[in-house]
């Protein structure tokens, strides 16, 4: 039986999915669902019948793009048939710079040294007392450390008149305070390390936290010296404290009285003279500001 006629008739019922007349094949960036048609635009057709030509051109290219998309690997999902897209090849700029990695905390450093790995724990845990699942921590959590117990045994050796509920509350408060302090310390150390190890930070790495304690000490010493120098007398008349830090200033350097080469000295003196009386002296005084000042004085 010859089926070619039947097939031809069947084919004639539909329009073709192939596109002809593309000299340069299209380039696709399927990650962005984009087609680039490098073929030159037909100027005559564009001039003569703009909208029709553009419609025709777009349709052809859309057909080619969809032929590519429909040939991608597909999966079926609740949302229908999904095509798996490759990564985009066209680079587009980011909105914000890359996130900077957070500096290591003391715990992270310790855990790394000891080989402690964080493992996921379920949020809800079974509570034997109530026979229900309850959050591990937080609101209605199981870690209320017994402050909700209706009776507490007085520990051996404790003052029987002491309020054990109060003691537990105090203990919790203290723990929170201590943790806050540690958090603060981590932040301070991170700030110092970030400041000192700019090289790593600019490269997008974590700053080196190895000798952060000594760095922090140095930073604090610097701050103390600055504050000492910030009095009205620049620290000259402050009462000295025993064992106090002494500023290590820059030592003044003097030129030798009889210089071997006098040209340097001459050049230095000439430049001063030039600034005061020479041509360059004009911008020594801000005329506009000077006029304003004299006017204000009157």
């Amino acid at each position, binding site marked *: 039986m010859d089926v070619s006629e039947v097939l031809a008739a069947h084919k004639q019922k539909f329009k073709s999915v192939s596109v002809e007349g593309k000299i340069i094949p299209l380039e696709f960036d399927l990650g962005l669902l984009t087609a680039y048609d490098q073929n030159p635009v037909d100027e005559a057709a564009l001039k003569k019948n703009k909208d029709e030509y553009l419609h025709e051109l777009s349709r052809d290219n859309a057909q080619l793009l969809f032929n590519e998309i429909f040939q991608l690997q597909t999966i079926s999902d609740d949302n229908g048939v*999904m095509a798996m*897209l490759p990564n985009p090849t066209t680079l587009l700029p980011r909105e914000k710079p890359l996130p900077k990695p957070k500096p290591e905390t003391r715990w992270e450093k310790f855990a790394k040294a000891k080989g402690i790995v964080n493992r996921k724990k379920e949020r809800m845990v079974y509570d034997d007392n109530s026979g229900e699942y309850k959050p591990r921590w937080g609101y209605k959590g199981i870690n209320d450390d017994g402050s909700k117990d209706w009776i507490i045994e007085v520990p051996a050796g404790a003052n029987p008149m002491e309020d054990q509920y109060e003691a537990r509350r105090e203990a919790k408060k203290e723990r929170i305070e201590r943790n806050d302090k540690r958090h603060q310390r981590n932040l301070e150390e991170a700030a110092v390390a970030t400041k000192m190890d700019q090289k790593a930070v600019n490269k997008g790495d974590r700053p080196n936290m190895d000798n952060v304690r000594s760095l922090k000490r140095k930073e604090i010493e610097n701050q103390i010296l600055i504050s000492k120098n910030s009095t009205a007398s620049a620290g000259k008349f402050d009462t000295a404290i025993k064992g106090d830090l002494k500023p290590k200033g820059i030592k003044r350097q003097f030129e030798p009285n009889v210089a071997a080469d006098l040209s340097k000295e001459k050049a230095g003196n000439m430049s001063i003279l030039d600034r005061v009386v020479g041509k360059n002296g004009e911008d020594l005084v801000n005329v506009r500001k000077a006029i304003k000042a004299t006017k204000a004085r009157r």
Partner: protein
Amino acid sequence: MLRTITPRNARVKRVLKNREAKTEENVKTAIFIRGSQTSQVVNDALADLYMLKKPYAVNFTKKNQIHPFEDQSNLQFFSQKNDASLFVIGTHSKKRPNTLTFARMFDHQLLDMMEVSIEHGVPMRDFKTPKSAIGMRPCFMFNGDMWDQNTNYIMLKSMLLDFYHGQTVDKVALAGLEYVISVTAGPMTSEGKPGKVYLRTYTIVLKRSGVKLPRIELVEMGPSMDMTFGRITEAKPDVWKQSLRVPKELKPKKKKNITKDDMNNTVGRIHLGKQDFDKIQTRKMKGLKKRSAEDEDSAKEKKQRMDASDDEE
């Protein structure tokens, strides 16, 4: 300058966290601004572009005294306030009629900016055809040989892709491909300057074709704009380079020993290990069978016995 906000509740904290720099970024938000003077053409264009960009868009309905090519402080402020990094500013003046300025920000600072004038625009509402749903991902088409040759064209291409490409995802619903943005670069002007650019938007109709692939038909949905290029501010090279950085986590991992040859065929290299010819399996033959000492002894005995029996005969 914006005041820095210290979060006082969980909601604000979440919002601020969402605004931080991330490896996988949010979809860029665009702000559509009317300049001090606008025309109907510009207003229509802004409204239509806003419709296409929704829901990642903020529409400023009031007029703003804004001149992006002279002073960018306004843009920086809007960018920070709205956590937006894309801008379209519509203006209309005698010198530059029906102008749209597309601007992009990086880290709330201006990255690049370009101006286009609408020579002829038809708004979406003038096409009495079905429209695509809001928030769908468009397909793009860039027709013409100019798109990677001239800075104007390169930037417009990058801008349009950046504005409308939406979330970068690894899969897309085939039924969700609803519309196409087709941009055609017209011929250069006689002075060799960049010519007109034709932006058209079509909805897609999939028809049966008798084969597995569908036949595509396009229906114009609008907006349709014929544009010419105006002023342009390119990105500073170092900032541009910084903005194109790809985080380590998102870089495709190199697979060892798999390469692609010139014909784009995948070629794998396999390591076979050292071959030991003593243990290699060849064709089994009785004569080549390795025999242990014991076997050999018993064989000798057998032979001797056979010899003995021969004697008896």
